[in-house]
């Protein structure tokens, strides 16, 4: 469905060159569901915009849905859907009109476009606002309208640039459900970018981690986790002295794991850590180290990112919706 070779895009800003995308080689098969994950400015949108013919590559090639994005751009456009990072509906338009126009643009007859618009309005919960002027809609309602527009022609390949940004949890769940159904019913190939770590985790079978315009990891969320981050086991003891002793002379079982010690707590990061816990507790009990509590946290994709780059996806602050959305999953 998608095949890129050394796809590269530079921008010139104030006479300086910004290397937004630096040689991406990506292959996506029909029916796959891929999430592009990366911090702000990593080059996710730029990559998507090249794949959707919106931006000519500086160098390298990309074939999408069987056609070259630079020389056969119209053929590509006919076969894909794209939900951009911005709002796609005109402010002075009405949602339903925009949906119908969008359907017509993809070659649907007026009647078919109207019918399809009606279906999507109902299923995305837009019935009350579809006939209002777009500038009067809330951010989340506009986002759902964007999604409806991207789906109107039931494309075989769908690109979504941060589709769920601005949606409340219920609507995010609803969107994820929609995406899953698209795949199940139509076998749609889906490429999305997201800041929500849990979304990438739950939705995609394949996560492509992008940083500074390069792919730095590409695997299923489980593989990424097991290869690039371990489970985190936090043991709390009665006395700091005990914690120190355990940290200094860890049982052989957790040899090679990363061990940190802080007051009465010992934090152990180990692959497959959850399965080690029962045995670990037995050993510690034999050694007369009284464990007061145990907490096991499965690694998040943020931990993966942290281990890959030494930076957290979340650290650059409040404008990152993932800060609250992708909070720890506790096993």
């Amino acid at each position, binding site marked *: 469905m998608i095949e890129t070779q050394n796809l590269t895009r530079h921008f010139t800003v104030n006479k300086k060159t910004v290397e937004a995308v630096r040689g991406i080689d990506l292959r996506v098969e029909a029916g796959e569901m891929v999430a592009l994950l990366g911090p702000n400015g990593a080059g996710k949108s730029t990559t998507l915009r090249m794949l959707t013919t919106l931006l000519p590559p500086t160098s390298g090639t990309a074939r999408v849905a069987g056609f070259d994005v630079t020389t056969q751009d119209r053929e590509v456009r006919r076969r894909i859907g794209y939900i951009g990072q911005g*709002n*796609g509906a005109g402010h002075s338009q009405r949602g339903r009109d925009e949906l119908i*126009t969008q359907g017509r643009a993809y070659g649907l007859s007026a009647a078919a476009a109207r019918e399809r618009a009606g279906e999507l309005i109902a299923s995305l919960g837009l019935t009350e606002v579809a006939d209002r002027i777009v500038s009067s809609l809330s951010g989340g309602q506009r986002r759902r309208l964007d999604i409806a527009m991207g789906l109107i022609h039931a494309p075989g390949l769908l690109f979504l640039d941060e589709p769920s940004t601005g949606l409340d949890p219920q609507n995010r769940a609803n969107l994820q459900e929609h995406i899953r159904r698209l795949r199940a019913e139509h076998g749609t190939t889906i490429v999305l970018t997201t800041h929500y770590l849990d979304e990438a985790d739950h939705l995609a079978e394949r996560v492509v981690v992008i940083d500074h315009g390069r792919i730095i990891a590409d695997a299923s969320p489980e593989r990424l986790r097991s290869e690039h981050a371990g489970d985190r086991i936090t043991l709390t003891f009665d006395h700091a002295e005990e914690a120190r002793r355990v940290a200094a002379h860890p049982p052989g079982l957790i040899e090679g794991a990363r061990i940190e010690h802080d007051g009465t707590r010992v934090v152990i990061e180990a692959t497959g850590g959850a399965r080690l816990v029962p045995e670990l507790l037995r050993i510690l009990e034999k050694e007369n180290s009284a464990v007061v509590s145990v907490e096991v946290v499965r690694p998040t994709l943020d931990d993966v990112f942290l281990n890959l780059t030494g930076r957290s996806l979340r650290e650059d602050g409040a404008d990152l919706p993932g800060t609250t959305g992708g909070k720890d999953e506790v096993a």
Partner: protein
Amino acid sequence: MNTTLIGDTLIVFGRELRPVLRDPFSVVFSLAQPLFFLALFAPLIPAAGGTAETLQWFVPGLIVMSCLFATSSTGSNLQFEMQTGAHERMLVSPLRRPALIIGRALKEIVPTFAQAALLIAVTIPFGFRPDPVGAILGLLLLCVFCVGLGALSYTLALASRNQEWVFWGVQQTLLFPLLLLAGMLLPVDNGPEWLRVLSRFNPLTHVVEAERALFDGRLLAPEVAAGVVAAVAVAAVGLFIGTRAMRRATG
């Protein structure tokens, strides 16, 4: 799934026109505009033959001017849609690139047809005598020219991106000299030599002269041929530059 350039253009045109039709106040307001020009400028024009002759000269130019104002600002609406994601969404659809430009330009032209009709209706009692066939041909010729102008305005919007003041600055700086040089509101015949030469190089001059000939009913006059050439050339150049700019835009 087979679409045509005309079909695509109608889709874009329909989309653009819808909000205008829903807001009749703005239409009524824009209708009145050329009437002000008529009332304020017509009395200033030196004409030997009295009011009727003045109108015969002035009204076609005024019609061209309203169309010019409207289409040269096409890009401004686009700028707003570029800032949201609406333009991007249209670009990523299979709609043909020229249709995106022509549809937008036509939306600006249609209200000027209403303006033209009003102007004609108001001036007939004062002796304006437009040739019906010529008037219709004149409006079609104007469409061709204004599609080109709309395309250039579109290009300007792409080039100036999110800086509205750049767009308006360039638009005003270019539009007014073109307007004055074309002898649209005041004749240039009595101007100095350099002004008259410059005026000959302005495609708009030929379009305005063709309009005057057509409204007079001189359908086969040489001015008409020159006007057609000028309008087609502007349309072709505009669409070429516009679609190219759209492909290259990094927005």
